[in-house]
């Protein structure tokens, strides 16, 4: 039963990625400025969610959460290096045949990113329903601009809107798949909980600082992007306090 619930929550976040294709029903392209704002919202929500994870993790053990967090940072660093070495940067390629490679690349990059988010969902269930709910909401909302980013690349290469939505969901399928083993692990082996929560928080903070924020700042004024990020973060923390009662 619990496993089904964890899988369902993970699946909800994956399906949310598909929502990112919806704007392309109305418009051919989404402006870079709007993508920057969406990324700023995502960055704020994820930072707010990470603060919630850190508060929960440090309750179980400061050093364990810290170690898990450093592991999360290293995980994102290593996977990012790997992706960069094995594929050219998406922005650097030009020409028609590169369109396909760019599409494969963005779906691959997003899929690898989803691994850590799946661990975050699973580990958060170890900290109770309230924690699991707001982590799931944060990741689901964060997935929407990711879906927009994927769909923007695919749509530019003539892929239909339903297929854009499909590939967006596929890129997030590691979330339900990874959530279940992460949950079973922290359930069966309670001392692992602060490590798991720390890992999830470290991975999310690092992903925000490494990619989401620099990209967002590149698409708008620092004041606009920064203020949207701050307000989203505050909203997420308020939401957490209200859910936790």
């Amino acid at each position, binding site marked *: 039963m619990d496993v089904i619930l964890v899988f369902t929550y993970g699946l909800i976040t994956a399906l949310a990625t598909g929502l990112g294709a919806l704007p392309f029903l109305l418009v051919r392209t989404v402006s870079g400025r709007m993508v920057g704002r969406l990324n700023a919202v995502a960055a704020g929500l994820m*930072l707010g969610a990470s*603060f919630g994870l*850190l*508060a929960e993790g*440090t309750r179980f053990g*400061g*050093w364990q*959460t*810290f170690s898990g*967090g*450093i592991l999360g*940072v290293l995980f994102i*660093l290593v996977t*990012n290096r790997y992706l960069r070495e094995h594929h050219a940067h998406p922005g650097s390629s030009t020409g028609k045949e590169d369109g396909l490679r760019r599409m494969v690349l963005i779906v691959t990059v997003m899929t690898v990113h989803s691994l850590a988010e799946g661990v975050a969902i699973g580990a958060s269930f170890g900290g109770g329903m309230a924690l699991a709910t707001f982590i799931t909401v944060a990741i689901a909302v964060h997935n929407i601009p990711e879906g927009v980013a994927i769909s923007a690349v695919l749509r530019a290469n003539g892929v239909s809107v339903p297929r854009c939505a499909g590939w967006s969901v596929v890129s997030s399928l590691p979330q339900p798949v990874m959530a279940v083993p992460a949950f079973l692990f922290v359930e069966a082996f309670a001392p692992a909980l602060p490590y798991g929560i720390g890992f999830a928080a*470290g991975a999310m*903070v*690092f992903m925000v*600082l*490494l*990619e989401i*924020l*620099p990209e967002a*700042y590149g698409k708008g*004024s*620092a*004041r606009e*992007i*920064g*203020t949207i*990020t*701050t*307000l989203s*973060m*505050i*909203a997420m*923390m*308020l939401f957490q*306090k*209200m859910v936790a009662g």
Partner: protein
Amino acid sequence: MATPLIVLLYASIAALSAIPGGFVRWSAEPGRERWLGWAHALAAGGMLGAAFVLTGVSGAAAGAGAIGAALGVAFIVTTHTVTRLDTLDLSRPDRDDPSAAPRLVALHALHACTEGVAIGVAMAVDLSLGVFMAIAIAVHNVPEAALLSGATRRQGAGPAGTVGLVVLSNIGQPALAVATWFVVAAAPSALPWVLGFAVGALLNLVMTELLPASYREAGSTSIALVASVALALVVLLGGVFP
């Protein structure tokens, strides 16, 4: 020692620890800007950690805290707009703009006041938490002062004048720390509001200034590493407080 004196002492130590930074002379060569970026990232991670520690203290409440935080954000946005500080490029404060140095001093003073509120409210919650906050902000003050000295010295100010400006711009820190402590001591029901204000203002400073500046100065991988490790360390050390 009476508590207000302890608040004054530690907030002053935090403010004065900026002085060594006033002697640093940053060069604008491309290779040296990376150090500036890492200093900014260190300050950003530390301030994120400080905000995290403040959200976790027992006096924090959801509704009042969120409204206080929104006010803190509004305060930073408004003061930046009024003083036109949002158009100031922190990475290259010296470029062809004679008004850059005085505006940087004003910006520095604004930061110092915000950090003073954070120290004061932390002191009101718990003295040891306040001391921790003062030390975190003292560390953060050094690169901030170094940045200021880079601009003023290129405008022709000597080391003594620069250090004088650093001290002057930091006077708001102990002043607001003590004032905030008195407000919360006199009206304990104000605590969640003030906590929220400090968190919102600190976060907005990080997101609208420190981080964007740091990304312009160094690569995002090193910035992300420095900032997240600084955040992790402050969270770890802050965990010792109830």
